[in-house]
Protein backbone atom coordinates (compact mmCIF):
# COMPACT_ATOMS: atom_id res chain seq x y z
CA UNK A 1 0.00 0.00 0.00
CA UNK A 2 1.22 3.49 -0.85
CA UNK A 3 2.50 5.52 2.07
CA UNK A 4 0.21 8.20 3.40
CA UNK A 5 1.05 11.86 3.92
CA UNK A 6 1.74 12.64 7.58
CA UNK A 7 1.23 16.35 7.21
CA UNK A 8 -1.44 18.53 5.72
CA UNK A 9 -0.35 20.79 2.93
CA UNK A 10 -0.31 23.99 5.07
CA UNK A 11 1.70 22.19 7.78
CA UNK A 12 4.18 20.90 5.22
CA UNK A 13 4.74 24.32 3.66
CA UNK A 14 4.92 26.11 7.02
CA UNK A 15 7.54 23.66 8.27
CA UNK A 16 9.51 23.77 5.03
CA UNK A 17 9.70 27.55 5.19
CA UNK A 18 10.32 27.42 8.94
CA UNK A 19 13.32 25.15 8.42
CA UNK A 20 11.75 22.18 10.23
CA UNK A 21 11.66 18.58 8.96
CA UNK A 22 8.79 17.61 6.68
CA UNK A 23 7.34 14.26 5.63
CA UNK A 24 7.90 14.46 1.87
CA UNK A 25 8.92 16.71 -0.99
CA UNK A 26 6.08 19.15 -1.67
CA UNK A 27 4.47 19.23 -5.09
CA UNK A 28 3.52 22.44 -6.94
CA UNK A 29 1.54 22.12 -10.15
CA UNK A 30 1.81 25.64 -11.66
CA UNK A 31 -1.66 24.86 -12.92
CA UNK A 32 -3.86 27.88 -13.55
CA UNK A 33 -5.63 27.39 -16.90
CA UNK A 34 -5.38 23.66 -16.23
CA UNK A 35 -7.26 24.08 -12.92
CA UNK A 36 -10.06 26.01 -14.61
CA UNK A 37 -10.51 23.37 -17.30
CA UNK A 38 -10.18 20.64 -14.69
CA UNK A 39 -13.38 21.80 -12.98
CA UNK A 40 -15.25 22.74 -16.14
CA UNK A 41 -14.70 26.51 -16.15
CA UNK A 42 -13.42 28.59 -19.06
CA UNK A 43 -9.62 29.09 -19.06
CA UNK A 44 -10.11 32.87 -18.73
CA UNK A 45 -11.94 32.52 -15.42
CA UNK A 46 -8.68 31.74 -13.65
CA UNK A 47 -7.65 35.38 -14.23
CA UNK A 48 -10.89 37.34 -14.61
CA UNK A 49 -13.21 35.69 -12.09
CA UNK A 50 -11.70 35.60 -8.58
CA UNK A 51 -14.29 33.27 -7.10
CA UNK A 52 -14.13 30.71 -9.86
CA UNK A 53 -10.36 31.02 -9.97
CA UNK A 54 -10.02 30.36 -6.25
CA UNK A 55 -12.47 27.47 -6.28
CA UNK A 56 -10.90 25.84 -9.34
CA UNK A 57 -7.41 26.03 -7.87
CA UNK A 58 -8.47 24.80 -4.42
CA UNK A 59 -10.38 21.85 -5.86
CA UNK A 60 -7.53 20.96 -8.17
CA UNK A 61 -5.12 21.19 -5.26
CA UNK A 62 -7.30 18.81 -3.29
CA UNK A 63 -7.79 16.39 -6.19
CA UNK A 64 -4.09 16.09 -6.93
CA UNK A 65 -2.85 16.53 -3.38
CA UNK A 66 -0.46 19.28 -4.35
CA UNK A 67 0.90 22.00 -2.11
CA UNK A 68 0.90 25.23 -4.10
CA UNK A 69 -1.24 28.10 -2.87
CA UNK A 70 -3.74 29.37 -5.45
CA UNK A 71 -3.05 32.73 -7.04
CA UNK A 72 -4.45 35.12 -9.55
CA UNK A 73 -1.62 36.14 -11.84
CA UNK A 74 -0.47 36.55 -15.41
CA UNK A 75 2.85 36.89 -17.25
CA UNK A 76 1.74 40.04 -19.07
CA UNK A 77 1.69 42.04 -15.82
CA UNK A 78 2.16 45.78 -16.42
CA UNK A 79 0.51 45.94 -19.83
CA UNK A 80 -2.98 46.56 -18.46
CA UNK A 81 -1.95 48.14 -15.15
CA UNK A 82 -0.07 50.97 -16.89
CA UNK A 83 -3.01 51.76 -19.19
CA UNK A 84 -2.90 49.30 -22.12
CA UNK A 85 -5.51 46.71 -23.05
CA UNK A 86 -5.54 42.97 -22.59
CA UNK A 87 -7.41 40.13 -24.19
CA UNK A 88 -8.51 37.19 -22.07
CA UNK A 89 -8.03 33.75 -23.57
CA UNK A 90 -10.99 32.42 -25.51
CA UNK A 91 -10.10 29.87 -28.20
CA UNK A 92 -9.77 26.15 -27.85
CA UNK A 93 -5.95 26.28 -27.69
CA UNK A 94 -5.58 29.44 -25.62
CA UNK A 95 -3.77 29.22 -22.33
CA UNK A 96 -3.29 32.74 -20.98
CA UNK A 97 -4.15 36.41 -21.56
CA UNK A 98 -2.31 38.58 -24.06
CA UNK A 99 -1.72 42.30 -24.50
CA UNK A 100 -3.79 43.79 -27.32
CA UNK A 101 -2.51 47.37 -26.92
CA UNK A 102 0.68 48.41 -25.17
CA UNK A 103 0.49 51.48 -22.93
CA UNK A 104 3.69 52.82 -24.47
CA UNK A 105 3.82 53.15 -28.24
CA UNK A 106 6.48 55.82 -28.68
CA UNK A 107 9.43 57.46 -26.98
CA UNK A 108 7.22 60.40 -26.04
CA UNK A 109 4.80 58.04 -24.24
CA UNK A 110 7.59 57.03 -21.84
CA UNK A 111 7.88 60.59 -20.60
CA UNK A 112 4.12 60.83 -20.08
CA UNK A 113 3.82 57.49 -18.31
CA UNK A 114 2.66 57.73 -14.69
CA UNK A 115 2.46 55.30 -11.80
CA UNK A 116 -0.98 53.70 -11.83
CA UNK A 117 -3.39 53.78 -8.89
CA UNK A 118 -2.83 50.42 -7.23
CA UNK A 119 -6.43 50.30 -5.98
CA UNK A 120 -7.98 50.47 -9.44
CA UNK A 121 -5.39 49.61 -12.10
CA UNK A 122 -5.66 46.61 -14.41
CA UNK A 123 -5.93 43.27 -12.70
CA UNK A 124 -5.29 44.61 -9.19
CA UNK A 125 -8.94 44.91 -8.04
CA UNK A 126 -9.49 41.29 -9.14
CA UNK A 127 -6.29 40.20 -7.40
CA UNK A 128 -7.38 42.00 -4.22
CA UNK A 129 -10.75 40.24 -4.32
CA UNK A 130 -8.95 36.93 -4.81
CA UNK A 131 -6.60 37.61 -1.89
CA UNK A 132 -9.58 38.40 0.36
CA UNK A 133 -10.87 34.91 -0.41
CA UNK A 134 -7.50 33.53 0.67
CA UNK A 135 -7.73 35.61 3.85
CA UNK A 136 -11.25 34.38 4.59
CA UNK A 137 -10.12 30.80 4.10
CA UNK A 138 -7.27 31.36 6.58
CA UNK A 139 -4.63 30.65 3.95
CA UNK A 140 -1.42 32.44 3.02
CA UNK A 141 -2.03 35.43 0.74
CA UNK A 142 -0.30 35.46 -2.62
CA UNK A 143 0.07 38.80 -4.41
CA UNK A 144 1.60 38.27 -7.86
CA UNK A 145 3.62 40.44 -10.20
CA UNK A 146 6.42 40.14 -12.75
CA UNK A 147 10.02 41.25 -12.39
CA UNK A 148 10.76 44.89 -13.29
CA UNK A 149 12.39 43.87 -16.58
CA UNK A 150 9.49 41.66 -17.69
CA UNK A 151 7.02 44.35 -16.61
CA UNK A 152 8.94 46.93 -18.68
CA UNK A 153 8.68 44.64 -21.71
CA UNK A 154 4.96 44.32 -21.12
CA UNK A 155 4.62 48.12 -21.02
CA UNK A 156 6.28 48.91 -24.36
CA UNK A 157 6.55 45.53 -26.11
CA UNK A 158 9.62 43.32 -25.98
CA UNK A 159 10.99 44.30 -29.41
CA UNK A 160 10.86 47.98 -28.54
CA UNK A 161 12.44 47.32 -25.16
CA UNK A 162 15.27 45.42 -26.86
CA UNK A 163 15.94 48.22 -29.36
CA UNK A 164 15.93 50.89 -26.65
CA UNK A 165 18.39 48.91 -24.54
CA UNK A 166 21.00 49.63 -27.17
CA UNK A 167 19.79 52.95 -28.56
CA UNK A 168 17.95 54.74 -25.75
CA UNK A 169 19.00 53.08 -22.48
CA UNK A 170 17.69 56.03 -20.48
CA UNK A 171 14.14 55.20 -21.63
CA UNK A 172 14.57 51.61 -20.47
CA UNK A 173 15.84 52.79 -17.11
CA UNK A 174 12.80 55.06 -16.75
CA UNK A 175 10.46 52.14 -17.48
CA UNK A 176 12.35 49.94 -15.03
CA UNK A 177 12.15 52.67 -12.38
CA UNK A 178 8.39 52.97 -12.84
CA UNK A 179 7.92 49.18 -12.86
CA UNK A 180 9.91 48.82 -9.62
CA UNK A 181 8.15 51.71 -7.88
CA UNK A 182 4.78 50.41 -8.98
CA UNK A 183 5.32 46.94 -7.51
CA UNK A 184 6.56 48.53 -4.29
CA UNK A 185 3.40 50.65 -4.07
CA UNK A 186 1.23 47.68 -4.83
CA UNK A 187 2.94 45.60 -2.18
CA UNK A 188 2.64 48.42 0.37
CA UNK A 189 -1.11 48.36 -0.21
CA UNK A 190 -1.13 44.60 0.31
CA UNK A 191 0.94 44.87 3.50
CA UNK A 192 -1.45 47.54 4.85
CA UNK A 193 -4.43 45.34 4.04
CA UNK A 194 -3.23 41.94 5.23
CA UNK A 195 -0.01 42.47 7.20
CA UNK A 196 3.38 41.39 5.88
CA UNK A 197 3.51 38.10 7.80
CA UNK A 198 0.83 36.36 5.73
CA UNK A 199 2.08 37.48 2.33
CA UNK A 200 3.85 35.05 0.01
CA UNK A 201 4.59 37.27 -3.00
CA UNK A 202 5.06 35.52 -6.26
CA UNK A 203 7.10 36.86 -9.18
CA UNK A 204 7.76 35.68 -12.73
CA UNK A 205 10.82 36.62 -14.76
CA UNK A 206 10.72 35.31 -18.35
CA UNK A 207 11.75 38.22 -20.55
CA UNK A 208 15.23 38.56 -19.02
CA UNK A 209 16.06 34.99 -20.10
CA UNK A 210 19.12 34.37 -22.23
CA UNK A 211 16.71 33.29 -24.98
CA UNK A 212 16.35 37.07 -25.31
CA UNK A 213 19.23 39.02 -23.77
CA UNK A 214 22.87 38.51 -22.83
CA UNK A 215 24.08 38.19 -19.25
CA UNK A 216 25.80 41.54 -19.75
CA UNK A 217 22.48 43.22 -20.45
CA UNK A 218 20.88 41.30 -17.59
CA UNK A 219 23.53 42.80 -15.29
CA UNK A 220 22.99 46.29 -16.67
CA UNK A 221 19.20 46.44 -16.82
CA UNK A 222 17.42 43.62 -15.01
CA UNK A 223 19.63 42.89 -12.02
CA UNK A 224 19.84 46.25 -10.19
CA UNK A 225 16.08 46.73 -10.17
CA UNK A 226 15.08 43.24 -9.11
CA UNK A 227 17.71 43.38 -6.37
CA UNK A 228 16.36 46.70 -5.13
CA UNK A 229 12.77 45.49 -5.31
CA UNK A 230 13.42 42.35 -3.29
CA UNK A 231 15.53 44.19 -0.72
CA UNK A 232 12.71 46.66 -0.12
CA UNK A 233 10.02 43.96 0.01
CA UNK A 234 11.97 42.13 2.69
CA UNK A 235 12.43 45.42 4.56
CA UNK A 236 8.61 45.76 4.58
CA UNK A 237 8.50 42.55 6.59
CA UNK A 238 7.83 40.03 3.84
CA UNK A 239 9.49 36.75 4.77
CA UNK A 240 9.66 34.67 1.62
CA UNK A 241 9.62 35.68 -2.06
CA UNK A 242 8.87 33.05 -4.70
CA UNK A 243 10.59 33.88 -7.97
CA UNK A 244 10.11 31.92 -11.20
CA UNK A 245 13.35 32.31 -13.16
CA UNK A 246 11.86 31.25 -16.47
CA UNK A 247 13.50 29.84 -19.60
CA UNK A 248 17.21 29.62 -20.36
CA UNK A 249 18.91 31.72 -17.64
CA UNK A 250 22.14 29.87 -16.97
CA UNK A 251 24.36 32.84 -17.74
CA UNK A 252 22.27 35.07 -15.46
CA UNK A 253 22.48 32.80 -12.41
CA UNK A 254 25.56 34.41 -10.82
CA UNK A 255 23.56 37.65 -10.69
CA UNK A 256 20.30 36.09 -9.57
CA UNK A 257 22.22 34.46 -6.71
CA UNK A 258 22.90 37.97 -5.35
CA UNK A 259 19.21 38.93 -5.32
CA UNK A 260 17.73 38.65 -1.81
CA UNK A 261 14.80 36.22 -1.77
CA UNK A 262 14.00 35.90 1.95
CA UNK A 263 14.93 33.29 4.51
CA UNK A 264 14.40 31.04 2.71
CA UNK A 265 13.17 32.27 -0.66
CA UNK A 266 11.68 29.93 -3.23
CA UNK A 267 13.29 29.92 -6.66
CA UNK A 268 11.83 27.86 -9.49
CA UNK A 269 13.41 26.95 -12.80
CA UNK A 270 12.58 25.74 -16.27
CA UNK A 271 14.06 22.55 -17.68
CA UNK A 272 16.77 24.71 -19.25
CA UNK A 273 18.51 25.06 -15.85
CA UNK A 274 19.87 21.84 -14.40
CA UNK A 275 18.71 21.28 -10.83
CA UNK A 276 22.25 20.51 -9.65
CA UNK A 277 23.28 23.94 -10.96
CA UNK A 278 20.30 25.51 -9.21
CA UNK A 279 21.29 23.86 -5.92
CA UNK A 280 24.85 25.08 -6.37
CA UNK A 281 23.80 28.73 -6.73
CA UNK A 282 20.76 28.91 -4.45
CA UNK A 283 20.71 25.79 -2.27
CA UNK A 284 22.03 27.49 0.87
CA UNK A 285 19.51 30.32 0.87
CA UNK A 286 16.47 29.14 -1.07
CA UNK A 287 14.10 26.25 -1.52
CA UNK A 288 14.66 25.01 -5.07
CA UNK A 289 11.66 24.22 -7.27
CA UNK A 290 11.29 22.79 -10.73
CA UNK A 291 11.92 21.79 -13.41
CA UNK A 292 9.83 19.23 -15.32
CA UNK A 293 9.41 20.33 -18.91
CA UNK A 294 5.74 21.27 -19.45
CA UNK A 295 5.95 20.09 -23.06
CA UNK A 296 6.79 16.57 -21.86
CA UNK A 297 4.01 16.65 -19.24
CA UNK A 298 1.60 17.57 -22.01
CA UNK A 299 2.80 15.42 -24.89
CA UNK A 300 4.99 12.71 -23.34
CA UNK A 301 4.04 9.30 -22.04
CA UNK A 302 3.24 8.75 -18.35
CA UNK A 303 6.47 6.73 -18.08
CA UNK A 304 8.50 9.67 -19.41
CA UNK A 305 6.96 12.09 -16.92
CA UNK A 306 7.45 9.67 -14.04
CA UNK A 307 11.06 9.09 -15.02
CA UNK A 308 11.85 12.81 -15.33
CA UNK A 309 10.31 13.42 -11.91
CA UNK A 310 12.31 10.57 -10.42
CA UNK A 311 15.51 12.06 -11.82
CA UNK A 312 14.64 15.53 -10.53
CA UNK A 313 13.96 14.13 -7.06
CA UNK A 314 17.24 12.22 -7.07
CA UNK A 315 19.12 15.41 -7.93
CA UNK A 316 17.50 17.93 -5.63
CA UNK A 317 15.55 16.19 -2.87
CA UNK A 318 18.29 16.87 -0.34
CA UNK A 319 18.94 20.50 -1.32
CA UNK A 320 19.96 22.20 1.96
CA UNK A 321 16.82 24.36 2.29
CA UNK A 322 14.51 21.91 0.57
CA UNK A 323 13.08 21.04 -2.81
CA UNK A 324 9.65 21.30 -4.42
CA UNK A 325 8.79 19.19 -7.46
CA UNK A 326 7.17 21.46 -10.03
CA UNK A 327 6.74 21.89 -13.80
CA UNK A 328 9.33 24.17 -15.48
CA UNK A 329 6.60 26.62 -16.41
CA UNK A 330 2.84 26.87 -16.36
CA UNK A 331 1.05 23.64 -17.30
CA UNK A 332 -0.93 23.75 -20.49
CA UNK A 333 -4.69 23.48 -19.90
CA UNK A 334 -4.60 20.60 -22.40
CA UNK A 335 -2.26 18.47 -20.29
CA UNK A 336 -3.65 14.94 -19.80
CA UNK A 337 -4.64 14.33 -16.15
CA UNK A 338 -2.80 10.99 -16.01
CA UNK A 339 0.50 12.77 -16.75
CA UNK A 340 -0.16 15.26 -13.96
CA UNK A 341 -0.89 12.32 -11.70
CA UNK A 342 2.58 10.94 -12.57
CA UNK A 343 4.11 13.95 -10.80
CA UNK A 344 2.11 13.13 -7.68
CA UNK A 345 2.97 9.45 -7.98
CA UNK A 346 6.68 10.31 -8.20
CA UNK A 347 6.63 12.33 -4.96
CA UNK A 348 4.67 9.62 -3.16
CA UNK A 349 7.07 6.94 -4.44
CA UNK A 350 10.41 8.75 -4.07
CA UNK A 351 9.77 11.95 -2.13
CA UNK A 352 9.74 10.75 1.49
CA UNK A 353 12.23 12.16 3.98
CA UNK A 354 11.48 10.20 7.10
CA UNK A 355 12.10 6.49 7.31
CA UNK A 356 9.18 4.33 8.38
CA UNK A 357 9.55 0.77 9.63
CA UNK A 358 8.51 -0.78 6.32
CA UNK A 359 11.39 1.06 4.58
CA UNK A 360 14.08 -0.33 6.79
Amino acid sequence: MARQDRMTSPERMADLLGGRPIDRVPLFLFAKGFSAVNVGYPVASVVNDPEKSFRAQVWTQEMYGHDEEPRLSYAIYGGWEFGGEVKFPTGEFAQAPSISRYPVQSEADVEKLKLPDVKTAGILPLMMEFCRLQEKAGRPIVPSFESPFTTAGNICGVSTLCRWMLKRPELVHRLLRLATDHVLEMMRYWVETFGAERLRPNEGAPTESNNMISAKHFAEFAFPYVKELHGKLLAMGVKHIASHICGEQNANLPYWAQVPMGDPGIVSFGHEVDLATAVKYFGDTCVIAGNIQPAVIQTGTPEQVYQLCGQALAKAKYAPRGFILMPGCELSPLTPPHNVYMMKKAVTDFGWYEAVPSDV
Partner: protein
Amino acid sequence: MASAERTQEILKGLREAVVAYDEEAAARLSKAALAEGVSAYDAVRQGLAAGMEKVGEMFAKHEYFVPEVLLCSDALYAGLDILRPHIRAGDASEVRKQIVLGTVEGDVHDIGKNLVKIMFEAAGWLVHDLGTDVKLEKFAEEQARTNADIVGLSALMTSTMLAMPRVIQMIKARSPGAAVMVGGAPLSPEIARQYGADGYARNAGEAVREAVNMLSRLGTKG
Protein backbone atom coordinates in the same frame (compact mmCIF):
# COMPACT_ATOMS: atom_id res chain seq x y z
CA MET B 1 30.94 52.50 -62.91
CA ALA B 2 32.85 51.40 -59.80
CA SER B 3 36.03 49.38 -60.28
CA ALA B 4 35.97 45.74 -59.21
CA GLU B 5 37.99 46.71 -56.19
CA ARG B 6 35.68 49.57 -55.20
CA THR B 7 32.65 47.31 -55.72
CA GLN B 8 34.12 44.76 -53.33
CA GLU B 9 34.85 47.52 -50.86
CA ILE B 10 31.23 48.72 -50.93
CA LEU B 11 29.83 45.18 -50.61
CA LYS B 12 32.13 44.46 -47.67
CA GLY B 13 31.14 47.80 -46.10
CA LEU B 14 27.46 46.89 -46.42
CA ARG B 15 28.00 43.51 -44.82
CA GLU B 16 29.92 45.07 -41.97
CA ALA B 17 27.37 47.86 -41.49
CA VAL B 18 24.63 45.27 -40.95
CA VAL B 19 26.74 43.20 -38.57
CA ALA B 20 27.77 46.31 -36.62
CA TYR B 21 24.12 47.51 -36.61
CA ASP B 22 25.21 50.79 -38.13
CA GLU B 23 22.07 52.12 -39.83
CA GLU B 24 23.74 55.28 -40.95
CA ALA B 25 26.60 53.43 -42.70
CA ALA B 26 24.17 50.99 -44.31
CA ALA B 27 22.18 53.88 -45.80
CA ARG B 28 25.29 55.83 -46.84
CA LEU B 29 26.89 52.83 -48.55
CA SER B 30 23.63 51.89 -50.26
CA LYS B 31 23.47 55.39 -51.76
CA ALA B 32 27.14 55.11 -52.72
CA ALA B 33 26.44 51.80 -54.46
CA LEU B 34 23.72 53.40 -56.57
CA ALA B 35 25.77 56.53 -57.30
CA GLU B 36 28.81 54.53 -58.33
CA GLY B 37 26.95 52.04 -60.51
CA VAL B 38 27.16 48.92 -58.35
CA SER B 39 24.17 46.70 -59.17
CA ALA B 40 21.44 47.19 -56.58
CA TYR B 41 20.79 43.46 -56.72
CA ASP B 42 24.41 42.63 -55.87
CA ALA B 43 24.46 45.24 -53.14
CA VAL B 44 21.45 43.58 -51.53
CA ARG B 45 22.49 39.95 -52.04
CA GLN B 46 26.23 40.12 -51.51
CA GLY B 47 26.15 43.09 -49.16
CA LEU B 48 23.16 43.53 -46.87
CA ALA B 49 21.72 40.00 -47.06
CA ALA B 50 25.12 38.35 -46.63
CA GLY B 51 25.63 40.53 -43.54
CA MET B 52 22.28 39.45 -42.13
CA GLU B 53 23.11 35.81 -42.74
CA LYS B 54 26.23 36.27 -40.66
CA VAL B 55 24.08 37.88 -37.95
CA GLY B 56 21.83 34.79 -37.99
CA GLU B 57 24.89 32.61 -37.39
CA MET B 58 26.09 34.85 -34.56
CA PHE B 59 22.65 34.60 -32.94
CA ALA B 60 22.70 30.81 -33.20
CA LYS B 61 26.14 30.82 -31.52
CA HIS B 62 24.94 33.16 -28.72
CA GLU B 63 27.33 35.88 -29.78
CA TYR B 64 24.37 38.12 -30.50
CA PHE B 65 21.03 38.22 -28.68
CA VAL B 66 17.64 39.62 -29.64
CA PRO B 67 18.47 43.35 -29.11
CA GLU B 68 21.54 43.15 -31.36
CA VAL B 69 19.69 41.18 -34.05
CA LEU B 70 16.83 43.67 -34.11
CA LEU B 71 19.22 46.59 -34.57
CA CYS B 72 21.06 44.69 -37.32
CA SER B 73 17.71 44.28 -39.03
CA ASP B 74 17.12 48.04 -38.75
CA ALA B 75 20.42 48.58 -40.58
CA LEU B 76 19.37 45.99 -43.14
CA TYR B 77 16.05 47.76 -43.79
CA ALA B 78 17.76 51.17 -43.97
CA GLY B 79 19.76 49.81 -46.91
CA LEU B 80 16.91 47.81 -48.46
CA ASP B 81 14.64 50.86 -48.56
CA ILE B 82 17.20 52.63 -50.73
CA LEU B 83 18.27 49.74 -52.94
CA ARG B 84 15.05 47.79 -53.53
CA PRO B 85 13.36 50.30 -55.85
CA HIS B 86 16.42 50.02 -58.12
CA ILE B 87 16.43 46.26 -58.53
CA ARG B 88 15.48 45.61 -62.14
CA ALA B 89 13.01 42.87 -63.00
CA GLY B 90 15.69 40.93 -64.87
CA ASP B 91 18.22 41.09 -62.01
CA ALA B 92 16.77 38.37 -59.92
CA SER B 93 17.09 34.99 -61.56
CA GLU B 94 13.64 33.97 -60.45
CA VAL B 95 10.31 35.46 -59.47
CA ARG B 96 10.25 36.92 -55.95
CA LYS B 97 8.96 34.26 -53.58
CA GLN B 98 6.30 34.90 -50.99
CA ILE B 99 5.57 33.64 -47.50
CA VAL B 100 2.59 34.15 -45.23
CA LEU B 101 3.87 34.15 -41.66
CA GLY B 102 2.25 34.29 -38.25
CA THR B 103 2.09 33.02 -34.65
CA VAL B 104 -0.97 30.82 -34.16
CA GLU B 105 -4.09 31.67 -32.19
CA GLY B 106 -3.72 31.89 -28.43
CA ASP B 107 0.01 32.56 -28.61
CA VAL B 108 1.59 35.99 -28.29
CA HIS B 109 5.25 35.00 -28.42
CA ASP B 110 6.44 36.96 -31.42
CA ILE B 111 10.17 37.49 -31.08
CA GLY B 112 11.17 34.26 -32.84
CA LYS B 113 8.63 34.80 -35.60
CA ASN B 114 9.95 38.33 -36.13
CA LEU B 115 13.50 37.04 -36.49
CA VAL B 116 12.31 34.51 -39.07
CA LYS B 117 10.58 37.33 -40.94
CA ILE B 118 13.77 39.38 -41.01
CA MET B 119 15.74 36.49 -42.51
CA PHE B 120 13.15 35.98 -45.26
CA GLU B 121 13.08 39.68 -46.08
CA ALA B 122 16.87 39.77 -46.16
CA ALA B 123 16.78 36.90 -48.64
CA GLY B 124 14.46 38.90 -50.90
CA TRP B 125 11.16 37.22 -50.09
CA LEU B 126 7.91 39.11 -49.85
CA VAL B 127 6.59 38.46 -46.33
CA HIS B 128 2.91 38.77 -45.43
CA ASP B 129 3.15 39.03 -41.65
CA LEU B 130 -0.14 38.27 -39.93
CA GLY B 131 1.28 39.03 -36.47
CA THR B 132 0.50 37.02 -33.34
CA ASP B 133 -2.61 35.30 -31.99
CA VAL B 134 -3.72 34.72 -35.59
CA LYS B 135 -7.17 33.15 -36.06
CA LEU B 136 -6.70 29.70 -37.54
CA GLU B 137 -8.66 30.24 -40.74
CA LYS B 138 -6.76 33.47 -41.47
CA PHE B 139 -3.66 31.58 -42.65
CA ALA B 140 -5.50 29.76 -45.46
CA GLU B 141 -7.38 32.92 -46.41
CA GLU B 142 -4.21 34.96 -46.71
CA GLN B 143 -2.45 32.23 -48.67
CA ALA B 144 -5.35 32.10 -51.12
CA ARG B 145 -5.43 35.90 -51.40
CA THR B 146 -1.72 36.27 -52.08
CA ASN B 147 -1.03 32.91 -53.73
CA ALA B 148 2.07 32.73 -51.51
CA ASP B 149 4.49 29.84 -52.06
CA ILE B 150 4.74 29.03 -48.38
CA VAL B 151 2.79 29.46 -45.19
CA GLY B 152 4.99 29.66 -42.07
CA LEU B 153 3.46 28.89 -38.69
CA SER B 154 5.12 29.69 -35.39
CA ALA B 155 4.10 28.48 -31.90
CA LEU B 156 5.99 28.74 -28.62
CA MET B 157 3.69 26.77 -26.39
CA THR B 158 2.70 23.13 -26.43
CA SER B 159 -0.94 24.21 -26.04
CA THR B 160 -1.01 26.45 -29.11
CA MET B 161 1.20 24.12 -31.12
CA LEU B 162 -1.77 21.73 -31.15
CA ALA B 163 -3.62 24.14 -33.43
CA MET B 164 -1.09 23.56 -36.19
CA PRO B 165 -2.46 20.32 -37.71
CA ARG B 166 -5.84 21.99 -38.03
CA VAL B 167 -4.34 25.04 -39.76
CA ILE B 168 -2.36 22.81 -42.10
CA GLN B 169 -5.52 20.91 -43.05
CA MET B 170 -7.32 24.18 -43.78
CA ILE B 171 -4.48 25.39 -46.00
CA LYS B 172 -4.18 22.12 -47.89
CA ALA B 173 -7.95 21.89 -48.38
CA ARG B 174 -8.01 25.31 -49.96
CA SER B 175 -4.68 25.27 -51.85
CA PRO B 176 -3.21 21.78 -52.16
CA GLY B 177 -0.09 23.20 -53.83
CA ALA B 178 0.87 25.52 -50.97
CA ALA B 179 3.75 24.35 -48.80
CA VAL B 180 3.66 24.72 -45.02
CA MET B 181 6.64 25.19 -42.75
CA VAL B 182 6.43 25.15 -38.95
CA GLY B 183 8.79 26.28 -36.22
CA GLY B 184 9.08 27.41 -32.60
CA ALA B 185 10.73 26.04 -29.48
CA PRO B 186 8.36 23.10 -28.72
CA LEU B 187 8.37 21.79 -32.32
CA SER B 188 10.67 19.12 -33.71
CA PRO B 189 11.10 17.52 -37.15
CA GLU B 190 9.04 14.53 -35.94
CA ILE B 191 6.18 16.65 -34.66
CA ALA B 192 6.26 18.69 -37.88
CA ARG B 193 5.93 15.49 -39.91
CA GLN B 194 3.11 14.15 -37.72
CA TYR B 195 1.24 17.41 -38.18
CA GLY B 196 1.46 17.14 -41.97
CA ALA B 197 3.86 20.08 -42.40
CA ASP B 198 6.16 20.05 -45.42
CA GLY B 199 9.09 21.57 -43.59
CA TYR B 200 10.53 22.52 -40.22
CA ALA B 201 13.33 24.89 -39.21
CA ARG B 202 15.06 24.96 -35.86
CA ASN B 203 16.03 28.60 -36.00
CA ALA B 204 15.71 31.76 -38.06
CA GLY B 205 19.09 31.23 -39.73
CA GLU B 206 18.00 27.84 -41.11
CA ALA B 207 14.49 28.91 -42.05
CA VAL B 208 15.18 30.36 -45.51
CA ARG B 209 17.45 27.49 -46.52
CA GLU B 210 14.82 25.01 -45.39
CA ALA B 211 12.12 26.92 -47.28
CA VAL B 212 14.10 26.76 -50.51
CA ASN B 213 14.92 23.07 -50.02
CA MET B 214 11.32 22.32 -49.18
CA LEU B 215 10.09 23.97 -52.37
CA SER B 216 12.53 22.05 -54.52
CA ARG B 217 11.69 18.81 -52.68
CA LEU B 218 8.04 19.39 -53.39
CA GLY B 219 8.78 20.44 -56.98
CA THR B 220 6.30 23.29 -56.66
CA LYS B 221 6.85 26.88 -57.59
CA GLY B 222 10.49 26.92 -56.42
